[in-house]
Structure formats: C-alpha cells, structure tokens
C-alpha cells in the first residue's frame, strides 16, 4: 500500500485528540451564561 502521508496523519490526529481531552477536563462549563455589560477586568 502507498500510504506515505497516512500514518503521520493518523498519529498526529490521535495525539492531538488526547491533548484536547486533557485540556477540556480542566476547562469550565459555560452553558446558560448571560453575556452582560458589567465591567469585570477593567
């Protein structure tokens, strides 16, 4: 099989997926949040 790009693409995809899952595990949920005009960081 001529799969020159295929294996690197597969490895890169898998590693990045694991990385994203870790990032999301420590990220906040925002569903239901109202976007308000209040000054927060000013």
């Amino acid at each position, binding site marked *: 099989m001529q799969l*020159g790009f295929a294996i690197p*693409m597969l490895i890169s*995809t*898998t590693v990045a997926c694991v*990385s994203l899952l870790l990032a999301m*595990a420590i990220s906040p949920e925002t*569903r239901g949040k109202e*976007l308000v005009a209040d000054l927060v960081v*000013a």
Partner: protein
Amino acid sequence: MAAADETVNTIPWWREPTKDQWLTWVAAWLGWTLDAFDFTIFLLIMVPIAQEFNVPLTEVTAVFTLTLWMRLVGATASGWLADRIGRKTPLMISIAWYSACNFIAAFSPAFWFLFLFRALLGIGMGAEWPVGAALAMENWPQRSRGLMGSILQASWGLGAVLSSAAYGLLYTSIGWRGLLAIGVLPAFLVLYVRKFVHEPPVWLENRRLQRTQHREVRLPLLKIFKRNMLGNTLTACWMMASAFVIGYSIGGLFPSYLQKDLHLSPGLVALPVLLQSLVFFLSGSLWGWFADRIGRRWAIMLTCALTIPVAPLYLLTTDYTMIVIFFALQGLFGAGGMHVQYPHYLAERFPTEVRATAGGFVYHQGAIFGGLVGPGLT
C-alpha cells in the same frame, strides 16, 4: 422573572431574536462562510501551484502555514479594534481585506508574489472570526446561542463545500488562478454589513461604563494574562491549539495525499472533501442542539473522543469507497462537529471588555500549531 422566562420558552426559539439580531447573525455567518471559501480553495490547488512554479510541495504548504500564522496577527489586531471602537468597522475591513488579497494572488507572476499575498490574506481572514463571533454571540439570545453559534462555525464546512464544488466544476476550465480570482466576490458583503448591522447593546453599554467610570481597557490583550484571567486564558489556548492540530492533521494534507500517494483525479479528490464539508455543515445543528442541553464541554469532549476510532478507517485503506464514507463521517467529529462550539464557548468564557481580543487571540494562536502540521508531516 420566572414568568418572563416562561413566556420566552413558549415561543419557538427562532422567533425569539429580533429582525436586527437575525440580520447581524447573517452578516457574521456570510463573513465566515466566504472566509472559508477563500481559505480552503488553496488546499485543493497546492499541487498544481507547485508544478506551475516548479517548487516542492513543502514550499507550497509553507504558504498555507504562513497564512495560518498571519491569522493571529489579524485576529489580535481586529479584536483590539473591536473591543475599542466596536465590532462593525473591523468586520468590514477584514472582509474587504481577504477578498482583495485572494484576487491579487490570482495574478501572481512568481511564487514569492503568491507567497506574499496569501500571507497578507491571512491577516484579513484572522481578523474576521473574532469580530463576527463576538458580534453574533453578543446579539443572540442565550436560549439558542449554542445552536446558532454552532451553525455559524459549521458554515466553514459550507464554504469548503463551495470551494470543493468550484474546484470540481471549474478547475479544468479556469485553473488555479481563476479559482483564486473568484475569491473577490465576498467583498460585496461589506455593503450588507454597512447597511444592516448594528453594534450589540451589551458592548455599547460596556463602553459607556468604561468611559463614565474612567476604567477604560486600552490593552485588552494584556488583561487576559492578568492573574484572575490567566488560568482561563491558558486552558482555552491549550484547547484551541489541540483542536487546530486535529483539524489540520485530518484535512490539511488529505487532498495532497489522495493526489500524490493514491494518484486520484481532481474529481475523485474533490468528492470526499466535499462530502466531509457537507457533513461538517450539517453537524452544526446537531452538536449545537446538544451543547444547549448537555453543555459545551461535553459536546466537545464527546466528538473529540469519537475522532480517534474513525481516523484509521479511512487512512489505513486504499479502498476508495471506504475512504469516501469514513472521511465524510469524520465531518461529524474531529474534522467538523468537534469545532462548532468555539464562537459561543469562547464568547462565554471572556467578559465583554476583552471578548473580541481574547476570542481572536485564543482561537488563532491555535492556528500557529495547526500550521506546523503541514510542514511537519511532509
């Protein structure tokens, strides 16, 4: 308050937004869709460009990489402008910018010229996203923000469908130069934005408060790295960097893989790319609906986890039917559905006075990492 909520919930979600809110969302949607067209058309013509200018494919992927990196410059600049002077003007500038650059690149007499104008195009492309996302999400009612943010983002797939269709139908008659030249058409959207789009009330009130209380945020980019925002900013950056690497690992070199390794014709190359983009577009409604029910985090994590088992199904085979089916299916996950949450998720993670800058920086710093995928894998 409870009575008011009950009243809102009895009307269909699509009747809750006002006409102005719909017009504003459509402006952001068109800006993003056409941004996608101008960007993704290049993925399909990298091989013929390399042949015409007699340069290695690696050098052409470097153009793609530089375009991605320049998006960070445009996104941060337009985000800063949008937080300071409003969302509307930077949106118009960005659309005019990327349209003009694509058109000029079509007439490249040499490879360096193409390199230059595609890099400049990246600034305009990056500039569009944070402004359009902030504008649309600040205007849209909370109840269906996940759904409409997802459809907005998924329209990248629609732009890619348009570019795939243009490639499949027009490449043999107008060539890669003609495909770049038609990228000037989005410029007409500027007229629509000028006429129909208004600043979000939440941003106008925030600016008024900043002025009247003498608490103006002049450098929003620095604010998101202050102690009380740092953790939020860094985890959002980590998320976007990973997401971009996933996206470009799946799709960045896929057309080149089919052309060079499997020696497929333009029509056969275009089909799976087109179908995946279509699935991506359609998945916006599905995952947006989920995000408004199970939350943004779970919607992202679920689609990310499902990306892993699907990838080998089209990469470890030379059966064209398998490639088409499972590459298209990936449009539901890592090549599409996973990415639809960013407009509303990032808008909800950052406060109004830094929202466009934060969204632009966080989203497009990820493109730096995504841009390394092409050269890294070739």
